[in-house]
């Protein structure tokens, strides 16, 4: 126990140190990849929050899109600072999430899956239908990259550090939620919904809360993405992108906050490495998804814990207070 108390903060400090130094030694192209990776870390960890209640929504990337579109509108038309666009985008995405989840909590399992798909598409169709202000099927371009004083975020390096700080803050808050009574309640109501209601947990309310928190952080990811790409396009948030998000989280696992991050990093490496495969790449990713669901349902995380327990000789599935 004492050993673990020290190793964990040390591990975190080491990771942050590596993340701080890494881009200094990399080419711009790599830094761009690291930026997208950090944005996706926020996205994939935010997706895990409603997933712990058993709600695997298919609308999550659309909520990310709500953040991106909010940023596009606010920074293009009102020229707001990046310090305002990011939090406001998160709030708007959270509000849209709350609106979507209100009918969604009436469904469970497949009904939820499919209804979330449909409602997400509804939001996306709004962007496609209304050329003004959303730009229609081609989306919007010319979104400012943002700046702090003299530092222009068009340069990858400063933007990398900005995203790193936002990602660390977001992850810290999501980690605290996960470890708090609220996070445990999310898992508890998934494990036994009847018992949860019986001991006074208002299950629909907590499911809505998890979904809204997830939407809030997805909005942050969307805002950061819009500033980086300088453009938003409805196709960036369609069901194909959603399936990639599911692949990350399935490959990683959902038992802890580290699972989705592991899955994302692993699949990003595979994605970069498989560039020569061109159009065959979706087959590789689809095949990977099937493989993990059929043969390794706990994801890499589960594999990691099993190997660690084998080496240290500990009992498996520890979970003391």
């Amino acid at each position, binding site marked *: 126990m004492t050993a673990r108390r020290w190793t964990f903060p040390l591990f975190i400090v080491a990771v942050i140190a590596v993340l701080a130094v890494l881009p200094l030694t990399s080419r711009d192209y790599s830094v761009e990849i690291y930026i997208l990776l950090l944005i996706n870390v926020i996205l994939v960890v935010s997706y895990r929050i409603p997933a712990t209640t058993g709600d695997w929504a298919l609308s999550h990337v659309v909520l990310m899109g709500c953040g991106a579109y909010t940023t596009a509108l606010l920074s293009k038309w009102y020229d707001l600072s990046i310090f305002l666009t990011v939090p406001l985008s998160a709030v708007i995405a959270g509000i849209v999430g709350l609106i979507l989840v209100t009918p969604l909590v009436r469904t469970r399992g*497949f009904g939820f899956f499919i209804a979330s798909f449909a*409602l997400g598409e509804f939001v996306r169709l709004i962007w*496609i239908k209304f050329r003004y202000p959303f730009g229609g099927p081609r989306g919007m371009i010319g979104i400012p990259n943002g700046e702090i004083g003299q530092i222009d975020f068009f340069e990858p390096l400063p933007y990398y550090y900005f995203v790193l700080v936002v990602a660390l803050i977001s992850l810290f808050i999501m980690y605290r939620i996960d470890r708090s009574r609220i996070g445990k309640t999310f898992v508890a109501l998934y494990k036994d919904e009847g018992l949860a209601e019986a001991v006074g947990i208002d299950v629909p309310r907590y499911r809505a809360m998890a979904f809204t928190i997830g939407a809030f952080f997805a909005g942050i990811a969307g805002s950061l993405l819009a500033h980086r790409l300088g453009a938003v396009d409805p196709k960036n948030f369609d069901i194909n992108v959603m399936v990639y998000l599911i692949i990350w989280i399935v490959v990683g696992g959902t038992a802890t906050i580290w699972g989705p991050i592991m899955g994302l990093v692993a699949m990003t490496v595979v994605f970069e490495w498989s560039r020569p495969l061109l*159009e065959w790449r979706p087959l590789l990713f689809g095949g990977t998804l099937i493989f993990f*669901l059929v043969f390794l349902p706990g994801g890499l995380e589960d594999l990691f814990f099993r190997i660690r327990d084998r080496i240290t000789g500990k009992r498996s599935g520890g979970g003391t207070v």
Partner: protein
Amino acid sequence: MEIGLLIQTIANSIAAGSIYAVIAVGLAMAFGVMKMANFAHGEFFMCGAYVVYVFYALLGWPFPAAVLMSIPIVGAMGVVTERLIFRPTRSNVLAGFMATAGLAFVLQVLVGQMWGVGLMRSVPTPYMGAADIAGAKIGWQRVLVIPAAIVMLSALWFFLYRVKHGKALRACAQDPDTARLQGIGINRMTMLAMGISGASAGLAGALLAPIHPVTPYMGHGVILTAFIVVVMGGMESIAGAVLAAILLGFVHTFVTTLSDAVTAQMVGVACMAAVLVVRPQGLLGRVKA
């Protein structure tokens, strides 16, 4: 709206509703028996269209023969999917569904690599000309869809209510535990359900091939509609799926005619949301205690 356009729109609505029904019935039945939905259902539809492309447009078979070929071929794909994906993931309801999302990717790539991506494959219309009803012209190919759907749905109804295996399938959907006690093999039933489910999606794709752009990604546009129909109908209710399909056929076609296709999709989703709020079990779904 003038009378000619009105008749034409009604005829198109019925044709669209028939196709939706054929697609969604397979999804609803598989859901009833397995309690799992197939995300690659739209890709099965796409494969049905490619069967017609290959046998009719490339190999020169007669059109009806090419359409009939889609039934065993895509049906077999359904059976294989059940065996390799749904059965190993039966314990986890969402795993099978997500795995079929992976299958959708796999099928898109395989079909695209075999017959080319990008350029859409055109299938020549086998039945030229149009029916003339009170001044409204409706292409024969579109009219043909309606009797084909009626024949297919009647055959399914006959199978489910008159044939021993069909009755067993219904028993299995209603109460798997009792069905097992009566000696009905669950594995055989889920395979049968997925076979029929695949065949119906394939048949729908085959019928539409001459009047729909044939591309590896054509399943995308269909899957959302099929899901909306199934949720509105009541998830496992086949009659509910048919009813919802016809309703949605009318809604989509009329809104598309009066406004545009994007609005039609939005109205369709809104209909589903309304059903969920007012009647969460669906139009003809049973209330669970």
